[in-house]
């Protein structure tokens, strides 16, 4: 595969959320608004790129039997780095006293460790490929994940609170509050995946 394919396949063709349906927990939980979805997506992208590079470099040194625990330790280290960075830089409350991005994502930042996308790429791609190809793969899959989360976040924010990225577009009277609550996450994602399936069919 060329470098371009390594990068671009994650965006749509192998999109982790819409096509592979992986990493559902953060997808549903952190997409109450577009900005939260984007934040979670970028945090995961960061972990995915670094862990892919690290794992592709050390894959030859790890005995086959203990590779999964070894990968998890590498991933957990980068997740800890992201957690500490986010606690330092995106931890200030908003202008109207709303909780900071770090507080809103909360427990889902440490839980990037058990996101099956990250371990999945380590096992399926990084362990068998060179560092640069793995970096591109991680970036592509990560940005595909971030794109899906931002899209779902925008849809939910638009329907639920009438705004996108905090920009008010719809008046208060046409907002459907359920979409920013838990049930709305399931329903919105269900319809989005159905729409993607339909688009894929139409393209074939």
């Amino acid at each position, binding site marked *: 595969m060329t470098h371009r394919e390594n990068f671009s396949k994650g965006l749509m063709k192998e999109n982790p959320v819409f096509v592979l349906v992986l990493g*559902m927990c953060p997808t549903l939980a952190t997409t109450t608004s577009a900005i939260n979805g984007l934040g979670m997506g970028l945090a995961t992208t960061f972990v995915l790129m670094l862990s892919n590079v690290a794992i592709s470099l050390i894959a030859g040194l790890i005995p086959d039997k203990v590779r999964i625990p070894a990968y998890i330790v590498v991933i957990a280290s980068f997740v800890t780095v992201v957690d*500490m960075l986010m606690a330092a830089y995106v931890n200030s409350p908003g202008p109207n006293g709303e909780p900071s991005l770090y507080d809103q994502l909360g427990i889902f930042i440490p*839980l990037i460790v*058990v996101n*099956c996308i990250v371990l999945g790429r380590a096992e399926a791609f990084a362990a068998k490929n060179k560092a640069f190809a793995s970096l591109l793969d991680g970036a592509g899959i990560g940005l595909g994940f971030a794109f899906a989360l931002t899209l779902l976040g925008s849809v939910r924010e638009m329907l639920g609170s009438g705004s996108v990225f905090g920009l008010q577009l719809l008046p208060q009277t046409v907002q459907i509050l359920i979409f920013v609550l*838990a049930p709305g996450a399931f329903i919105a994602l269900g319809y989005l995946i159905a729409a993607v399936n339909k688009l894929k069919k139409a393209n074939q």
Partner: protein
Amino acid sequence: MEYIIIIISAIFVNNIVLAQFLGICPFMGVSSKISTSAGMGGAVLFVMTISTIITYLIMHYILVPLGIEFLQTITYILVIAALVQMVEIILKKVSPALYQALGVFLPLITTNCTILGVAILVIQKDYNLLQSVVFAVATATGLAMAMVVFAGIREQLALVAIPKGMKGIPVALITAGLLAMAFMGFAGIV
């Protein structure tokens, strides 16, 4: 009374799957038959209780005294991975019947985010050991209940005509959404 509130809140009001979005993978993946969901629920209950006790003790007797709480994520995931392996080995030896019932689900549990999630949540909520255990048991019960109910619905869903594009994941997600809406009815209890 305090314990009753923890139990009701963990099972119904803040149900781990339908309100907090942890454990969506087993919820979607395993729950196409009632019997397998009940088996998975039992395995989660078992591992979650043990892992919560052990990670709680590690946090309060090793990480906090040494001032290295930031290693929480790495330590927990390693402990949980090792623990699941150990539980599998011990169970095989001690209780073959239980191993038969839960065995196939155990390897899946390492990457189950509910286990790590609950271990981190009890630290965030500042529970003591007994409260943590009660919380873990109640949370696992909530997960098992949600999975069994969902499996029941999906068994029926397999028999009806569904529009082509909605088959599989989309309709499962929308069903879960309706179930989550029903669970919102518990919101005022505690």
